[in-house]
């Protein structure tokens, strides 16, 4: 008897849709052993994650607070994915967006809330977009690998924000902490139910809907999909692929930049060191798990929000490092890639002989 793989004649639809769920479950199972090895009871830990993130109105609101930047960054990353462009720089674009919004909030002198918020929004949009646009330009003009450029620019962006909050933008009344002065009331998004949930969440949902319509109902969206699946055909059809690459990376970064706007205008009300615990990296996993669907992005972002809120609480009760969440996310991706194989292939037992 011998175990061999063979191609399926038709890819399995059932597996296609169940693969993300199965991978999450298997990752939970394997991560359980890792937790056990680190001296933490996995059942208690998982129970705590669910209770903390979903068990109370406050917990749920915190989950949505974390879901918000995840939706923005993941939408950005998944937009680029549609064209087979890898934007690994959503983290840096978020920081740049936060930077742009903060510059407007601190120095524009606008007093009317609507004007102020609108200006902050567009500053974040533009900063995030241009930051990713650098990688877009390099890729479109000289085929420079956008994975490496967008990633390395994360480090530069984070150091740049550090420079500002430790240096020129530091709040003189902030007891030397690395943060800027607090924003005026005009620069704050509305908050609901006495929680930290802010209108950025609804903006994120709206943005997901908008992006869905853009991809499915406009010529531009169609072109992006064609270029992504068959760049040669796109060129023969007269599409300007270079321009499209720049445009998509710009838009992808701009959407990730809005996440930064949401964080400073809705949540922190100032710019400070370490505003994101790695939303931009989690976004890559969300975009891959969501399989290019905007609705999928919203759902998976919520799941990851649950994980992040739970991870924060595990840090308090078990002194587990928050970075553990990354190990879990890495596992999910591994299992998803492995299960992708079985969508198009199946295992088969062959009796005797060398048959393969």
């Amino acid at each position, binding site marked *: 008897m011998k175990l061999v793989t063979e*191609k399926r004649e038709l890819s399995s639809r059932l597996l296609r849709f169940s693969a993300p769920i199965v991978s999450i479950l298997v990752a939970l199972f394997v991560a359980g052993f*890792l937790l056990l*090895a*680190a001296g933490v009871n996995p059942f208690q830990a998982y129970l705590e994650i669910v209770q903390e993130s979903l068990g109370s109105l406050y917990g749920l609101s915190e989950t949505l607070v974390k879901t918000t930047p995840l939706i923005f960054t993941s939408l950005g990353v998944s937009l680029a994915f549609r064209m087979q462009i*890898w934007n*690994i720089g959503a983290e840096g674009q978020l920081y740049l967006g936060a930077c742009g919004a903060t510059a407007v909030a601190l120095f524009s002198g606008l007093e009317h809330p609507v004007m102020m918020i609108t200006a902050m929004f567009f500053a974040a949009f533009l900063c995030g977009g241009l930051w990713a646009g650098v990688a877009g330009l*390099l890729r479109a003009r*000289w*085929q*420079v*690998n956008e*994975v*490496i*450029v967008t*990633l*390395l*620019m994360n*480090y*530069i962006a984070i*150091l*740049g924000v*550090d*420079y500002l909050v*430790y*240096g020129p933008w530091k709040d003189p009344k902030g007891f030397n902490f690395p943060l800027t002065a607090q924003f005026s009331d005009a620069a704050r998004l509305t908050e609901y139910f006495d929680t930290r949930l802010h209108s950025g969440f609804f903006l994120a949902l709206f943005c997901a809907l908008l992006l869905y319509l853009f991809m499915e109902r406009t010529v531009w969206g169609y072109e992006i999909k064609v270029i992504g699946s068959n760049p040669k055909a796109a060129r023969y059809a007269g599409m300007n692929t270079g321009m499209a690459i720049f445009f998509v990376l710009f838009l992808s970064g701009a959407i990730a930049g809005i996440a930064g706007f949401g964080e400073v205008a809705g949540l922190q009300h100032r710019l400070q060191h370490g505003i994101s615990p790695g939303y931009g*990296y989690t976004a*890559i*996993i969300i975009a*891959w798990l969501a399989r290019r669907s905007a609705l999928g992005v919203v759902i998976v972002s919520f799941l990851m929000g649950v994980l992040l809120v739970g991870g924060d609480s595990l840090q308090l009760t078990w*002194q*587990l*490092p*928050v*970075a*553990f*969440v*990354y*190990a*879990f*996310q*890495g*596992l999910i*991706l*591994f299992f998803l*890639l*492995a299960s*992708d*194989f079985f969508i198009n292939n199946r295992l088969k037992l062959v009796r005797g002989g060398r048959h393969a």
Partner: protein
Amino acid sequence: MLEILLDATVRSSTPILFATLGAIINERAGIINLGIEGLMLIGALAGFAGTQASGSLLVGVLAAFFAAMLAGSVHAFITVQLRGNQIVSGLALTMFGVGITALFGRSMVGLTIAGFERIAIPGLNRLPVIGKPFFNQDMLIYFSFLLVVAIAFFFYRTRWGLALRTVGENPAAADTCGVPVLLTRFLAVTIGSGIVGIGGAYLSLATTPMWIENMSAGRGWIAVALVIFASWSSYRALAGAYLFGGITAMQLRFQAMGTTVSAHILQMLPYFFTILVLVISTIRLQKGASQQPESLGQPYDREDRK
């Protein structure tokens, strides 16, 4: 002054050099590995834990090699056997590495070990200017010199090296000649990953003999970029790694001298220069004949052979 700067250059280059060499072995066989950053962290933690437990630096380095190899074998299995997306699998490996080392590194924080010590090579260490920086160093640095030559020899002077390069260039042709494509790729990814792990171990056993969460700080990504700068050659990898070590050393020197330029700005320099060099070497590659392995990033499936 020049000697001190050169010495700091060699010491800050070595982890990146190991990582770049490991990545080159991966890519020469046709597999992109974006897990370098994670593998370095796994190597750093395993190296530190191994030395801490055994009291032997050699055990630490071996632990780093095998731990990174084990982690790399996951990437190898997914990309080679299961023909999964190499970029996503590599990113997953990096995330897994960051997370798992944070988790298991908790108990190592604050512990100390006796790190690598300098051993002078008699005679050579008396050479003017380059004597001290290059020949009064620790064993891992000497090992890295050796590895650069050994890898070049392996690629161009051995049958296995030829087989590995063919698998990266034209796997179907290699298959026809009886080279086991999948096995060769699997071994290239795992052994390459192990070498990356030694680079990580250099951080925790020599640079700063302790474990710090996320201590690779982007060096793995710099190594990924340097592979392109190096046009997949181990000698050019040496040049590239030293260039970056030089920038890091200068940046540290400026900070030590107490310049008015912000430390945050200075810390950006290595990343900034990596991007610059990546752009220049990409443009240059396109003008000349590209050295990039022909089948880089493409899974091999015998059934698709033409």
